[in-house]
């Protein structure tokens, strides 16, 4: 994989985009994600109202792939229902694992589709999935809380 294919303009743009790199006042849930080998370290915060993700933001630091991927995720999932968000998280993870390759099916991931080829670069996979895995943990907890009620 060539560098230009990895660090595309879109990824570099999202890496620098700090729109959703911030703290949320009074988040419903937050979760810490960490790649011990490379030092990627993020905290995700989610605010949920009536089963809908009202706000989703992150803080911390990490490589361009992890930061861009998390920024794309935040943009994509704000305003979605928890169920819908969970479905999209799974779709993204399946894309990175190379399980879903159909472009039409992946279209709904919007900007995050640009990370598709990371599946060919195993050492960077954990960077690309850090934010999404962390959100998956939060969403699973929200689902469990809903069931308890």
């Amino acid at each position, binding site marked *: 994989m060539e*560098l230009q294919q990895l660090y595309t303009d879109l990824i570099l743009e999202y890496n620098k985009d700090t729109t959703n790199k911030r703290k949320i006042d009074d988040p419903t849930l937050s979760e810490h994600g960490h790649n011990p*080998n490379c030092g990627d370290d993020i905290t995700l915060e989610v605010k949920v109202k009536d089963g809908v993700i009202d706000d989703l933001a992150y803080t911390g630091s990490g490589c361009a*792939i992890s930061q861009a991927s998390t920024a794309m995720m935040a943009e994509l999932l704000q305003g979605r229902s928890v169920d819908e968000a969970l479905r999209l998280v799974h779709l993204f993870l399946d894309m990175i694992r190379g399980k879903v390759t159909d472009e039409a099916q992946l279209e709904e991931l919007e900007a995050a589709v640009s990370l598709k080829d990371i599946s060919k670069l195993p050492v960077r996979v954990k960077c690309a999935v850090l934010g999404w895995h962390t959100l998956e943990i939060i969403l699973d907890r929200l689902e469990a809380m809903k069931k308890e009620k």
Partner: protein
Amino acid sequence: MNLEAIRNDFPILKTQCAGRDVVYFDNAATTQKPLPVLQAAFEYSTHSNGNPHRGAHIFAIAASEAYDGSKETVRRFLNARSTREIIYTRNTTESLNLVARSYGETHLKQGDKILITIAEHHSDLVTWQRVAHKTGAALEYIYVDKETGHFLPEDLKKIDDPAVKIFAFAEVSNVLGIHFDPKPLIERAHAHGAVVVLDGAQSAPHRKVDVQDLDCDFFAFSGHKMCAADGIGVLYGREELLNDMEPFLLGGDMIDLVEEQETRFAELPAKFEAGTQYVEGAVSLEAAIRYVEAIGFDAIREQEQKLVRRTLEGMQQIPHIRIIGPKDPAEKEGLVAFTVKDVHPHDVAQILSAEGICIRTGHHCAEPLHRYLGINASCRASFYFYNTEEEVDYFLEKLKGVRPMMGYGD
């Protein structure tokens, strides 16, 4: 030193990457192996392979001779009094675990203190955390100046506390690159009878070690950071301390007499070498010691100093590079850790990798040090005697391109 001839001994350095010979600057993680070392291991396995200290056949004898001969070379290399003080392990980490478990856990108690430094590698830190948790001893740290990397003078007073029973530190920091002159520190700790453990992983490959002159109690190093196979490491321990310790692992060859309910352990060093040992690794280590000694530590130092000087001077000309630890080449022991503003170390390493340059990225198994310095991770270029100034120039040129590549102006 004939650099060209030396490089011819390392076929791996001719690997083609990005249209040129690969630039291998990750020697603090592991070094490459020269042909004489590879051949020694190959010869052993081709003609002499057996299980040492067991059996009476020709190969058992050949293996015993190879193993014991290698030990004598290591003894001489460290200037230990006897081969009874030389224990083979897998690596520095295992050596330090042995000390922590077999000495630390059995000799420390509540009220005692273990003193280490914030610059320690996890192998010399997590190990002592567990000893502290298990025994109730307190774990204390000597901190460093965030700019110069030197130990804070007021923190050095902690060494004088008579409650300090173990003082453990790396002779050379794998991040700061500093050589912490161990002798005065050891003297100070010994003044009240503390046991001193030296992590020599980053020092033994680069400078002469004399354990009697240092007067340290334990000294650990790895073969794979000095041209030998990975999986062979050394623990030097003062004989009376080793005799006063419990075995680390139990099993074959570490016993004198085994009955149904009781066992009498073997004499040193066998007491600490349970199970079939890595003889090929021991042979490889002996060959590596001979290879490094033939080049000589003065020549190694001279070459590494040239490379470090050129690297530091070059980096200071590139905007937005932060050098970690001292910036004076005389204070750097063959490695330079750094960060590039706004670019995560992982991306720096990826970009350089595409240009055929191998550096390390992450926290280099020194997470508390990075946190203390206020950085998440860093990049590290680390050299050995076979690296060249041309490689440094190429590396610096490519390093300049990192920020532009990531969409920053300069």
